[in-house]
């Protein structure tokens, strides 16, 4: 581990970006059990959710600092009965508000109430385009309800994004998945390859697609991108394990992105909770201004002074910021190392070997092994 990462210089507020993107994770509770969930493995530990007044205060403070995009997420944000109140406050404050949901817990009356309150956009996740696989992966009989809710969302004239996490077990259905989203009238489709953090890291051997699967899926996705031009935007996110340059994770640490977890912890990204040696500030104790501009957690990897070689002298360091800190930590044991996705990283060859080892296993063998589902029982066992 790095000693303390204290190389980051103190930044004047003027040099800091603004938290343009506020992700409000309203609750870790969720009726689904997706084995690639982005919540922390130990989410069951954080039970004490912020109340309505505290969330409203968060929205006001962040808006003052410049936040414009607001995501209501979770867990499943629909479990919060005060969601309508928070949406109305968000609208009043001038946010563009996005509801990021499984749609479980939604009905037409609620969609109408969200519209009334001023919600701008709804994103529904699907796990697959066939009912059996969708329900298996989500651990819930939700497929038909999702279809129905997607239709209701369009009926109320919302922009609709459909999000499908893509991995070894559903990637061969990609054409069916895209067709389903076209039939449902989606405006945007996110085909997001699993990124390996938390639950998905735990299940990586069962989720990572092979090179051949990936090549085929990419070809089909690009075909439909062309075909649907001007009518539906298809965003295809490749799994970064197959890349040679890292993603510009979060557009840089503490640059534009602020996550507030259900218990009020402020995170530079929703996966950051797994990083050791951090005390993430909580909105119950600190102002968002201090958290964003002053807190050690948000300033630690801001800018480039914390970087080591090969990043420190790399001409691309302001393009990708050395990739993802969580990934660097998970794969090298040191969050200040270059993300090993980068082929300049001395750990890159190790990652490639690991990918080859995983994907050499035949699909039958992979399917025969149990996925670890994201639920409270497993979370407690992993805490």
């Amino acid at each position, binding site marked *: 581990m790095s000693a303390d990462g204290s190389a980051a210089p103190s930044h004047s507020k003027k040099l800091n970006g*603004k938290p*343009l993107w506020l992700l409000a994770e309203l609750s870790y509770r969720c009726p689904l059990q997706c084995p690639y969930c982005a919540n922390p493995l130990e989410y069951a530990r954080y039970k004490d959710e912020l109340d309505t007044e505290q969330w409203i205060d968060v929205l006001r403070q962040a808006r*003052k*600092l*410049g936040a*414009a*995009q607001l*995501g209501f997420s979770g867990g499943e944000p629909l479990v919060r009965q005060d969601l309508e109140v928070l949406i109305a406050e968000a609208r009043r404050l*001038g946010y*563009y508000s*996005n509801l990021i949901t499984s749609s479980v817990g939604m009905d037409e009356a609620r969609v109408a109430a969200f519209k009334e309150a001023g919600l*701008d*956009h709804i*994103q529904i996740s699907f796990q697959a385009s066939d009912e059996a696989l969708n329900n298996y992966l989500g651990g819930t009989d939700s497929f038909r309800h999702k279809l129905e809710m997607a239709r209701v969302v369009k009926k109320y*004239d919302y*922009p609709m*994004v459909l999000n499908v996490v893509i991995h070894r077990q559903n990637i061969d259905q990609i054409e069916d998945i895209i067709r389903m989203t076209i039939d449902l009238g989606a*405006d*945007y489709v996110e085909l997001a390859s699993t990124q390996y953090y938390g639950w998905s890291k735990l299940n990586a051997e069962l989720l990572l697609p092979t090179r051949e699967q990936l090549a085929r899926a990419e070809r089909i996705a690009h075909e439909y991108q062309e075909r649907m031009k*001007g009518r539906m935007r298809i965003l295809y996110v490749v799994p970064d394990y197959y890349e040679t340059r890292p993603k510009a994770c979060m557009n840089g640490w503490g640059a534009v992105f602020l996550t507030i977890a259900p218990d009020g912890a402020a995170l530079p990204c929703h996966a950051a909770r797994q990083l050791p040696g951090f005390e993430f500030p909580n909105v119950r104790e600190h102002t968002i201004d201090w958290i964003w501009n002053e807190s050690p957690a948000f300033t630690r990897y801001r800018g480039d002074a914390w970087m080591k070689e090969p990043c420190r002298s790399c001409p691309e360091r302001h393009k990708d910021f050395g990739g993802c800190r969580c990934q660097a930590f998970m794969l090298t044991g040191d969050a200040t190392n270059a993300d090993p996705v980068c082929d300049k990283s001395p750990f890159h060859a190790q990652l490639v070997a690991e990918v080859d080892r995983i994907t050499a296993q035949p699909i039958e063998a992979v399917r025969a092994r149990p996925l670890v589902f994201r639920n409270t029982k497993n979370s407690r066992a992993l805490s």
Partner: protein
Amino acid sequence: MTAVTADTVPRIAPLFRFQWEEAQRCHVLLYPEGMVRLSGSAGEIMKRIDGKTAVSGLLEDLRAAFPGVALERDVYDFLETAYERGWLRSAVAQ
């Protein structure tokens, strides 16, 4: 490519919300999970688009606000780009 003429009546496409952002001191277009920051002149054009006024009317209003500035070419260029990016739709068929 949409041909923008003096009679075109643009409106902001339903996917987008146009507003002034005080913290950034500029107009922006907000859409699902994204934001476009507009330049000062783009903001001046966009804020006059109301789904009722034709391009000829927008130009008239802009000339009154910025007398002596040759802005017609820039306005057409911007509108064409905005159509291409899906920010604008035509309120009335030409």
